[in-house]
């Protein structure tokens, strides 16, 4: 009897399993665990090559900490907006839900814009992928982070478009929450990269 009850329950709530967590959310956590190793390996490579370049430019000659602090602030603020977006969707306030989703994506795009400016500026200063170990490791590490942010922006804009079409509501808040998990993760990775690459001399 109890099994029949549980089976009937499972039909009503298809994605909630043994642990009471949603499958999709747990899958996202597993993915983020894997991403930790991905960025851990990239950061480890950067650190093991730190100071090993046999020619310039070196990091302290070229990194613009004030400028990147602004872009880091922009990215961290987008995390705040992400929280507001999720809260708005959860309470069925789709007007603000749309606004916050769009602004989160906008700040993310702003961060990517800063990065594009930074990369072109560095290339003009003579630092490219092929210049030295610093250029190689710096561009690949921050570039892969930027690619993750870009992916997040596309994801956020997709949710925003769904919301504009009226296809996103409180019953879909889990999709916003999962996107938020990814978005916060990408932010946290930037805190690690910003500290290790820019702030520590």
């Amino acid at each position, binding site marked *: 009897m*109890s*099994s*029949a009850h*549980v*089976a*009937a329950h*499972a*039909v*009503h709530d*298809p*994605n909630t*399993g*043994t*642990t009471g*967590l949603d*499958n*999709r959310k*747990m*899958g996202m956590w*597993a*993915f983020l*665990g*894997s*991403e930790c*190793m*991905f960025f*851990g*390996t*990239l950061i480890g*490579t950067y650190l*093991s*090559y730190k100071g*090993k*370049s*046999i020619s310039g430019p070196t990091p302290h000659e070229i990194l613009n900490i004030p400028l990147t602090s602004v872009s880091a602030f922009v990215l961290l603020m987008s995390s705040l907006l992400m929280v507001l977006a999720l809260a708005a969707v959860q309470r069925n306030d789709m007007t603000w839900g749309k606004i916050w989703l769009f602004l989160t994506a906008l700040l993310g795009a702003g961060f990517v814009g800063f990065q594009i400016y930074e990369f072109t500026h560095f290339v003009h200063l003579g630092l490219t*992928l*092929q210049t*030295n*170990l610093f250029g*190689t*490791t710096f561009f*690949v590490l921050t570039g*892969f982070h930027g690619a993750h942010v870009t992916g997040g922006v596309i994801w956020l804009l*997709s949710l925003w478009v*769904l919301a504009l079409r009226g*296809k996103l509501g409180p*019953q*879909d808040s889990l999709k916003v929450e999962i996107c938020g998990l990814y978005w916060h993760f990408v932010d946290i990775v930037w805190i690690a990269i910003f500290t290790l690459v820019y702030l520590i001399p």
Partner: protein
Amino acid sequence: MATHAAFMPGEAAAAPSGLWSWITTVDHKRIGILYGTSAFIFFLVGGIEALIMRLQLAAPDNTLVGAQRFNELFTMHGTTMVFLAIMPMSAAFFNYMIPLLIGARDVAFPRLNALSYWVFLAGALLLNASFVVGAAPDGGWFGYATLTSKQFSPGQSIDFWVLGLQILGLSSLMAGFNFIVTIVNMRAPGMTLMRMPVFVWMSLVVQFLVVLAFPAITVALILLMFDRFFGTLFYAPAAGGDPLLWQHLFWIFGHPEVYILILPAMGIVSEVLPTFARKPLFGAPVVIYSGIMIGFFGFGVWSHHMFAVGMGPVADSAFSIATMLIAIPTGVKIFNWIGTLWSGSIRFTAALYFSLGFIAMFIMGGLSGVMHASPPVDLQQTDTYFVVAHLHYVLFGGSIFGLFSGAYYWWPKITGRMLDERLGTLHFWLMLIGFNVTFFPMHYLGLIGMPRRIYTYAPDLGWNFWNLVSTVGAFLIAVSFLVFIANVWKTMRAGAVASPDPWDGRTLEWAIASPPPVHNFGVIPTVHGRDELWLQKHGDGHGGTPAPRPPAPTRQDLASIHMPPPSYWPILLAASMLFMMSGALISIYQVVLGGLLTLYCMFRFALEYHRPHPQESLR
């Protein structure tokens, strides 16, 4: 739209048939069969590569293949056996058996599961397409940079290898996320973690290894790709790069990979032995803890593959001790398996023979492994045939024996037909003898100095006889697999029909029909202990009452089951990914076009069931 496609089980419902139903399937059982079939085909391809190598080495100064072709053969043999044969054979059992063993109707993400398979196939095809264009990878399965850097491997062969492995890694990662969620979150009521069958436990450990180890090789391959395509300096010692970077990144992945290959086989053996000894697995919790320990230590021993590069005594000692520590949980498991057999009522079936072969051969491989764990000994053995012997005792004597034990054990459940036990036993003995004739002499050849990866040797080195013996053994192994194929051929046409529970099994898969219906369980069972079906049939063996059997499903139960409808987006997404990745070998325009196609397919995949009618989603 999807309503008409939703499967409505009941006595009248039959599984859909035809090629299209296989291409669009999201059923974990069919995906398991696809994995198993593809893996077996690639296993034969890798085996043929091995036979050509053995023919070349059968006699000194042989000229069957040249040095370049030989390099391609050992590279593709290793890559194929690891990524295209053993891993997907394990994946076949994960797919088919895990939902059945935990009392679920499918995996957590059925379409992602289909995507994993098609992406695997895409990577496998890309890798083997290199033969067609005459640029087969030749840098070893480990692909050491700087050997694989543009300077020393200017052609496209390494590009095929890098891109192929990148795609295969993606497939493994997606499967890893899927099975972690499936195992943790989709167990039947009452199936606590410690009541989970040991095969499911070992699978769970493997998924964690995949999810945490594959990013390391993903990054290593990305860096190599950037070096080769964009001129970065990661593996350029002339620019100050560390010549060991690749080796570290590769083996941080590579050693957990070894456990990714062996733990599924250990799980299978832990299911087969109790069934055919008619006893519970001796000290099952300890077997589980040992598996977790092996997985955990597996991340701390990678540099024992690098003792010969000169890391210094401190690093050598640390990695040596960690490596020796792994022998402890492994040894514990072996004693538990022997303890399971001890005073059991043993039935000698083909499945049991293969499990016994696994234990015996794996002990030998494990012992030579402990020898390598000591750096001074390892320095003598590095890059000799002794290492070839060792790794084949654990990967062939271990993984392949274990996986074929699983194949003989679960064959009736998967196909609904019994395999011929006499042919199965013949397969086992031929394979056991052929295996030892092939690989045991390699210990000796290695100790008297024969290096690995040489394509020929001079006649006066004393290596002639044992190389010939080894080649004869390799063909004996080939004959044993012909027996297996004959067995499958014969029994699929006219084999005895399997009952739901032909072995008097212990776990939930034997409680349902062979082969299982599309929805697996009419009523999701409630679990009362480890070996739930045994508890239902025979009680706990200490006079307790048998566990209650689940009620027969009513028409209402069956009508309330909704399985996910088929989808063609997984194969389209995998195809567009393959199109994009292969563009890296052809033209940037193909990469861009492929990327856009991939993005489009991802959207269609993601939004296919956005806001479904509640009953259309899984279960």
